[in-house]
């Protein structure tokens, strides 16, 4: 079986690896337009921050028998009748099954001065973009980022970590408005300010002017911001050009079914370019899940494998920022408190001075959405509960504070006097307070004598202080009577 994979990004590399891992007699050809081997897009902001080098973002790749990876080879057309793809260098590659993993492209907003893109204005999407940003940032002092979504903020954070003075310009009233509510957005803006990233909110850009000395961004409120470079992070659009030209069903993305098949059953689409059940993903985890399903079906391992989308969790994690957002947390609670199912609950905690904000929504003991920003020790639990639709803890406070406060475990007694005789002092040797008291009464006086008689503190040794405390207390409470 000949399988051709178009584009060698995170989705394309993953499906190649998934297919290769399943062995079998298949010839896998990967055609990647970018000149490099597959890399981890998620790590590009770390690369931008200067903490790692380019080799560190490389992804593992399928290599060896049966896998032919060709980088720098752009596919120009699909001949569905001949079942061949044509490449820019004039080659044709026949396929029995074709996987489109063409990803998405950065959107360049329709602003005056951006067509064509000036040198100092760079989208943030690919490794090449990253290289150009880094080149432009060398010797630069100020940077602008247009777009206050997840990627824009990551780029801003990366550039700030390089010591640049960064301003994020965002047309909406608060950052990441699709994931956050206004209060969370405000806390996030404060957090960013503390990290050297300024924000200009609720103001659309109206034009760009760039020359050899710098770039100027004009805003709708009449202000003009000046910088050495401008990074564009204004969203992405699925790359459906090949699919569209080949006559496949295309909406916003290439339309696929639960098996990730397009309108041609010999062609699948996965990752950013695919539109499943009306939704685009734009994230790596779903792309990899899709790659797995296609591999399972193509390899015959599980012909019934189907893609089931998981709920989206947006996670922004960089030094000094810890944000998780999921579900319907941005919306207002319906007036009557019910939509379907039981009444909606809402939990909130805000400590804006310390950059912490939490808002969780619960219905029928299940999380329906959450925003967690700052120091939220239960974030791992919240993400898992949301992901799995698992019931939330009876003590809701543990979702905000990381631990339950329900019936408290018996606290160690402040004084041995308050300790019941049955209280275990030494776990390792199962010695209770009563036994130590009895030993004292029988004449043991020092910790060593008490230990020798009861074996307390002879295991891990952790209760030695407690035994000493009891000895002291007994010495005070029952003065040794000289005989």
């Amino acid at each position: 079986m000949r399988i051709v994979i178009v584009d060698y990004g995170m989705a394309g590399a993953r499906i190649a690896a998934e297919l290769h891992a399943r062995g079998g007699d298949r010839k896998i050809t990967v055609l990647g337009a970018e000149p490099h081997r597959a890399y981890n897009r998620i790590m590009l902001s770390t690369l931008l921050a200067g903490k790692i080098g380019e080799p560190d973002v490389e992804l593992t790749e399928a290599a060896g028998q049966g896998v032919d990876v060709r980088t720098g080879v752009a596919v120009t057309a699909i001949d569905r009748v001949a079942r061949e793809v044509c490449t820019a260098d004039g080659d044709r590659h026949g396929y029995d099954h074709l996987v489109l993993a063409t990803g998405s492209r950065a959107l360049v907003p329709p602003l005056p001065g951006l067509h064509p893109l000036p040198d100092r204005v760079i989208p943030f999407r690919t490794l090449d973009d990253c290289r150009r940003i880094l080149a432009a940032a060398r010797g630069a002092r100020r940077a602008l980022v247009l777009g206050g979504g997840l990627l824009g903020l990551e780029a801003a954070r990366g550039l700030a970590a390089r010591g640049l003075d960064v301003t994020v310009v965002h047309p909406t009233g608060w950052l990441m408005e699709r994931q956050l509510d206004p209060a969370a957005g405000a806390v996030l803006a404060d957090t960013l300010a503390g990290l050297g990233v300024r924000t200009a909110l609720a103001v659309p850009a109206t034009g760009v002017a760039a020359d050899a000395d710098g770039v100027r961004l004009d805003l709708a409120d009449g202000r003009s911001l000046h910088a050495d470079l401008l990074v564009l992070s204004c969203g992405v659009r699925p790359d459906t050009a090949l699919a569209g030209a080949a006559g496949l069903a295309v909406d916003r993305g290439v339309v696929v079914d639960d098996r990730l098949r397009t309108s041609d059953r010999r062609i699948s689409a996965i990752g950013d370019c695919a539109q499943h059940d009306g939704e685009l993903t734009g994230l790596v985890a779903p792309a990899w899940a899709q790659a797995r399903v296609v591999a399972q079906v193509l390899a015959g391992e599980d012909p019934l494998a189907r893609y089931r989308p998981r709920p989206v969790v947006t996670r922004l994690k960089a030094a000094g920022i810890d944000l998780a957002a999921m579900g319907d947390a941005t919306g207002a609670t319906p007036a009557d408190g019910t939509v379907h199912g039981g009444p909606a609950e809402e939990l909130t905690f805000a400590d804006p001075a310390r950059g912490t904000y939490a808002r969780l929504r619960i219905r029928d003991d299940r999380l329906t959405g959450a925003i967690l920003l700052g120091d939220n020790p239960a974030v791992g639990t919240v993400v898992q509960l949301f992901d799995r639709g698992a019931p939330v803890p009876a003590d809701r406070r543990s979702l905000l504070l990381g631990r339950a406060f329900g019936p408290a475990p018996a606290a160690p007694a402040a004084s041995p006097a308050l300790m019941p005789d049955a209280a275990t002092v030494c776990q390792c040797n199962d010695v209770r307070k009563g036994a130590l008291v009895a030993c004292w009464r029988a004449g043991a006086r020092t910790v060593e004598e008490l230990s020798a008689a009861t074996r307390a503190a002879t295991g891990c040794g952790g209760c030695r202080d407690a035994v000493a405390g009891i000895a002291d207390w007994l010495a005070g409470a029952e003065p040794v009577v000289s005989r």
Partner: protein
Amino acid sequence: MVLREGGPRIEVAPRPFPTNRGGLCQKGWTAADLLDHPDRLTSPLLRDRPGAPLRRATWDEALDRVVAAIRAVQDRHGPDAVAVFGGGGLTNEKAYALGKFARVALRTRHIDYNGRWCMSSAAAAGLRAFGVDRGLPFPLADLGRADTLLLVGANPAETMPPLLRHLADQRARGGRLIVVDPRLTATARQADRHLQPLPGTDLAVANALLHIALTEGWLDRTYVADRTSGFDEVRRTVAGYWPAEVERLSGVPVADLEATARALATVDRAIILTARGAEQHAKGVDTVTAFINLALALGLPGRPGSGYGCLTGQGNGQGGREHGQKADQLPGYRRIDDPAAREHVARVWGIPVSDLPGPGVPAYALLDSLGTATGPRALLVFGSNPVVSAPRAARVESRLRDLDLLVVADFLRSETAELADVVLPVAQWAEEDGTMTNLEGRVLRRRALREPPPGVHTDLEVLAALAARLAGGAPSYRRTHNRGPRPTPEAAERFPADPQVVFEELRRASAGGPADYAGVTWERVERDEGVFWPCPDPEGPDTPRLFTESFPTPDGRARFHPVTHRPAAEEVCADYPLHFTTGRVLAQYQSGTQTRRIDALRRAAPEGFVELHPDLADRLGVAEGDAVRVVSRRGELRAPARLSPAIRPDTVFAPFHWPGAARANSVTNDAVDPVSGMPEFKICAVRVEKA
């Protein structure tokens, strides 16, 4: 510990020693209680026919029966139709002799042991990374000087309490302790940070820690370049384990992952230790490998005060895995499929190399095949109780029942002995000389304090007698006062009952192997507070610290191996919606054959239980102490509920020390690691019902 003979009674007394520093838990203190326990076996037992009760028999009768049955089985089905199952509690001498007995006296390839269920994943991972498997490549006391100590799936506060003395040292010096465990264990409570991942996700956690170390620029790139090989592929693999994704998989917050990576990477001395929680999985070898990769990338192994190690689970968990009890192994940690190793060992054993069998199969595969068309039809068990300790125990029990012959050498009527055709009463620890090798790779002496009671023989004597009968066939066996069976001259030479003679042979057999004992003598062990292997020369030094200069691999470099997360062999589903995991409690040990018979321990831990989170209990309508059933696809256990917020609400726990209705291994999964053969004791899918 040492023993004092206090008149007629033997008492335990602590002794200062660098490993336990004089510490003993209740199990150690009470260990002498079994020496004269009323349940002690003092006569062979024999079953006249299937279904008949076990009755007392003479040694002659019992041994004749064993030998006749072995001959009958082997005549009919060939030498491999007899199998041997050993234990990680046997002394080095016994473990060595048992491996030799299987290959030389029985000429079977089938021998394996319960350590397969304990140390095999860490062993396999250590071997492939470092070229050697020694639990700790440094003395235990190094823990006390670590700036950061990461314990993964280890609960020494309950399983090895004296070790905590070193942790107390560590904390007193300002060191940080980080514990990874799905339960807030007694050990985790003492930690500065507790990561509480979903069971079965440790590998991903390790890869995420390495991912963070990579992205933060914390790798020791010089060390990676100079002392290791294979990093590039690991680097590309962990690039796919960004923290947010692993948080979602494991439930460990990104901030905790970052803080852990930082604590390991930005200090002088850091130690990473794994134990069964990480290892007893169908991906146990890869999970350990992921932590070794992390340690290597941070430049820890071989650096003073730093490194990777694993905590041993049984009394002789280290020595028991070095000298031939394993299916694929010859003494000195040699491979049985290595022609040079076969040549060497065959010469020591005085047999043609062509007579030496090849590798057998790992423990569970062996037990699973018993009594089947292709499996062994006779089994000899020494120092193990698989009816309680094997995964999917009901299946194993049924396999044992289908045997033509089951022989159990033990000093108590274990649940496995109850199924035996012949039970041979053997000596206890205070009645035999020998050596053990502890988790530091330190060879220690065990000294006999008294003779075994009348009617009881040592394991070595039993092996000698069986070998003699198998060799000669003549009634060559004559019992003398307490010194046991007297074998024929040749067999006596080949299977000596004197442990020091056995040890001398072990030295020769191990010479030149990875676990080289050639320079270890009993005298030296006694003089020097133990001897660390490898120790090839009686006059030369031993090796308290490995890897300081190089690794025992062909090119002297440690080897990275890329490893990827995969789901547990059995995932939760609508019918079995909860994760089940198993472990130990403080006052019991292993299958409980010994500890369940000690009054003080029974008082401290009287019965099995099922630990579940109060929220889960509430949903199930279960209150503290209610009987609950834990049901998996393989079986069920029934025990009282113990409610505790220390466990994740999606996971239930049961200790594995009890037989019968509370047997945790009725539930566990028999999926095994493809490399080590380790069963997946630590995770399967269950439902919990009020019983």
